[in-house]
């Protein structure tokens, strides 16, 4: 039952369960993943899922959960969290497609999502290519709260030609870490 107290992760699990019941799967990406990994230090108001299933079929399943379609968004009367299914494939910068390496168990449901390292890279891609410093902050927040593979992030950053911006990320991370300690 979806209500005002349903957390992002619980909602993701409900949606995953309903989709699986109908033979579909979806991967949670974007800001909602940041919220989960940072214990809501960053609060995303929506959940973005990428699914290879037909949008029409997804819409039918979402309707059974009480969601109403508003354009490409799905809204529910009992929660402020909206849900969207942007088109795939899942990519991070030039790495397309990307296999999501994260999973979180909610009861007997497994929510598939980006790993902390992938989510950090996903946020950094907005900083690298759109100069979005909100996303730089989000990447740093994840790295401060979760174990991330800095070697892998550096490797990917260099592949993207973003060595200097990776340094900005690392300096911001070290600066925040020093203040935290």
């Amino acid at each position: 039952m979806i209500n005002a107290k349903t957390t992002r992760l619980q909602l993701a699990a409900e949606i995953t369960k309903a989709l699986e019941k109908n033979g579909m799967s979806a991967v949670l990406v974007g800001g909602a993943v940041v919220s989960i990994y940072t214990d809501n230090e960053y609060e995303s108001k929506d959940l973005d899922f990428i699914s290879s299933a037909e949008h029409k079929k997804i819409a039918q399943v979402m309707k059974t959960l009480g969601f109403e379609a508003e354009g490409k968004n799905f809204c529910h009367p009992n929660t402020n969290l909206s849900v969207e299914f942007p088109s795939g494939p899942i990519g991070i910068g030039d790495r397309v497609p990307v296999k999501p390496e994260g999973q979180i168990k909610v009861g007997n449901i497994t929510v598939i999502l980006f790993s902390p390292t992938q989510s950090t890279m996903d946020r950094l891609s907005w900083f690298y290519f759109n100069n979005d410093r909100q996303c730089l902050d989000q990447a740093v927040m994840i790295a401060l709260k979760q174990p991330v593979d800095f070697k892998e992030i550096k490797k990917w950053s260099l592949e993207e030609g973003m060595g200097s911006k990776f340094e900005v990320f690392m300096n911001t991370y070290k600066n925040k870490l020093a203040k935290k300690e």
Partner: protein
Amino acid sequence: MYSAIFGNETAEKVLLYLANYGEGHTRAIATTFSLSTSQVYQQLIRLEKEGILVAKPVGRTKVFTFNPRLAIRKPLIALLEDILLLVPPEDQKKYFRDRRRPRKTGKELS
């Protein structure tokens, strides 16, 4: 913060803005820091004349970026990045954290 290095406070703000966002035009920079457009424009033109910035026309506005041919481009940006790290969090949020990633039309901002 370190305006003496850059000549004056407006020039420092202009350069920090460009290091932070990668590019900018007069009105956006002036609005961000509540400065007059003429004040900002004067500095942008001065920095362009000195070869530190370059401008490209986008529609009816001139968008300024760091000159890719500037020999000290990398160390200058690195210095500005170091200064950005020292900006107090409330000022970072106020001046340097505009959302730059796309958001679908009609979708609420988080």
